[in-house]
């Protein structure tokens, strides 16, 4: 069947495309090109003049130890959040997939955290774990654990990992549950008759069949951790203590907005942009083709 539609007027199709094009250009390409452009420039201390410096911003960036530190933090942060949120969500989904009384309520409740805005989630976690006020913090201290994320960088990192994981579990849970429910029941029954116990059924049948979902979620989660955790980090730790929770995206904000180094910050966003383009390309290439089986 020919899906093409013939337009008599050659301006009509352009007119119909216009809103989409305008939105993409104004809100995406224009700021992106601005970022690329300012990454080649340096602003003076008063913000009155700018000067073209070519790749100097990038050179400076790659000579700054703090940038590598942020990269390392991002790596630890993103792999921990992705691993934890994926595995916890999978566990919950497997449990919710059983036929339970009130299963619908349980599933709905599990999805709620996704509806909480990142900054709100951050504030919630901040208060729960705030060393002198937080309930959980008091519990930890009561047990004799020296809990103070305001001073201890590792604890601060753990805290933002916890908050970011909690926030992402719902999303992963939804996809895993949908994935589980799309596996034909007869496959599981057949495996049961074939002598596979539940754990073996999971690892030999269910998990391989979920792998396309898991791979898709991995990419989405990494993108999430890279970019959407800004609100959580800002609310919980503000990137501290002593930059222990400063990820790449937080550093863009800290250097550009707080430090006033627009050129360097723009260079960092361009690098992040390249990373996200690469991740999206990977996702389109592998997930959409469902190469796993």
């Amino acid at each position: 069947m020919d899906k093409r539609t013939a337009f008599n007027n050659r301006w009509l199709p352009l007119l119909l495309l216009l809103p989409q094009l305008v939105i993409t250009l104004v809100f995406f390409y224009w700021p992106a090109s601005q970022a690329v452009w300012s990454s080649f420039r340096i602003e003076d201390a008063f913000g009155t003049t700018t000067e073209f410096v070519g790749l100097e911003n990038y050179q400076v960036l790659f000579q700054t130890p703090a940038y590598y530190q942020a990269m390392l933090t991002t790596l630890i942060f993103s792999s921990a959040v992705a691993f934890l949120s994926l595995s916890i969500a999978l566990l919950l989904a497997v449990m919710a997939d059983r036929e339970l009384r009130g299963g619908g309520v349980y599933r709905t409740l599990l999805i709620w955290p996704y509806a909480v805005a990142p900054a709100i989630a951050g504030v919630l976690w901040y208060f729960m774990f705030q060393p002198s006020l937080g309930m959980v913090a008091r519990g930890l201290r009561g047990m004799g654990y020296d809990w103070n994320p305001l001073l201890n960088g590792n604890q601060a990192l753990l805290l933002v990992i916890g908050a970011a994981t909690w926030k992402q579990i719902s999303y992963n849970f939804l996809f895993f549950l949908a994935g589980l429910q799309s596996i034909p029941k007869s496959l599981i029954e057949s495996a049961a008759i074939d002598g596979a116990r539940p754990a073996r059924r999971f690892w030999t049948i269910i998990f391989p069949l979920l792998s396309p979902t898991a791979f898709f979620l991995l990419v989405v989660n990494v993108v999430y951790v890279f970019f959407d955790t800004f609100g959580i980090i800002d609310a919980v730790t503000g990137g501290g203590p002593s930059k222990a929770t400063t990820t790449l995206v937080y550093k863009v904000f800290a250097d550009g907005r707080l430090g006033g180094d627009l050129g360097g910050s723009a260079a960092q966003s361009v690098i992040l942009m390249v990373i996200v383009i690469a991740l999206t390309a990977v996702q389109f290439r592998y997930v959409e083709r469902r190469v796993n089986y």
Partner: protein
Amino acid sequence: MAGVTLNTVRKTYQGGVEAVKGVSFAVPDGAFCVLVGPSGCGKSTLLRMVAGLERITSGEIAIGDRIVNEIEPAERDIAMVFQNYALYPHMSVYDNIAYGLKNRKTPKDEIDRRVREAAKILAIEPLLDRKPRQLSGGQRQRVAMGRAIVRKPQVFLFDEPLSNLDAKLRVQMRVEIKKLQKAFGITAIYVTHDQVEAMTMSDILVVMNGGEVEQIGTPSEIYRHPATRFVATFIGSPPMNLIPGEMMADGHVRAGEAQFRLPPHPFAPGRAVEVGLRPEDIVLGQSENAFPLKVDFLEELGATQLVYGRLNGAQLIAQVPSGSVAEAGGTLSFGIAAERLHIFDPATGRRAV
């Protein structure tokens, strides 16, 4: 090797729906038993209870001498072929067939030997490295069979395994499944709603309706002596004609213009009965139990033709050799042998003679 025995097996689902209402029958060792009935008659539920995929509400199921009510599917030593084949999509054909053996910790060289042997029997050796999605429906069906035979189980269970195949392949696979089962001598329970499969494949035929067994017997017993009106109309194509009639003082049954002479029977005169006539038993021009029939409509099937008419207000179909009746509209005389008549009690639906 073992037979299967069911003793007043019931299945009641949460919410009170009774899917199986106390079914008892025994399948001897090595026999091919077919459960047949319309959709929702409980035949699949019954099979799934034998497999251990559904819990048994009450009653007992035994495989051999062992009651399996509380035994896991894996421990029952059965193999099942599903309607959608349930092949593992991420595994090759080889791994699909080997999966059950691997789970049972069979040595690797023995797995290999048995998988190749099964593949050879089913003529799927060239397909061993393929994934299920690269196979046709018939090939998938063979792989599913391979997965069943490779384990040499006590019992084969089949849940409408041919219903996803086209008509030609279905006939072919029907013969192959039956041959394989005989060759291995393994007890089989086979669920279908197709009465041709039921008649051709079974040693024992169990006709089910509404969660209950209507009749158990060999296919020819069920065809020749259907125990109920339901069985009479379910088995046989076109279905048996049922004509309302009345018992006469002289022992005949009167059904409109027809008078049927019966073998000796215990009925009182004046009693209402239903006379069953199989279309293929009705003979054009036979003098025994002759009756006139106005031909309303003709259907040509090639070897035979179906003659449609009405007798005592009910539709009657006669199946006669092709060319017997030239055109619709005329009135012809048909007859039927007395021993081919079936008499049912209209109140209970049960067979009387």
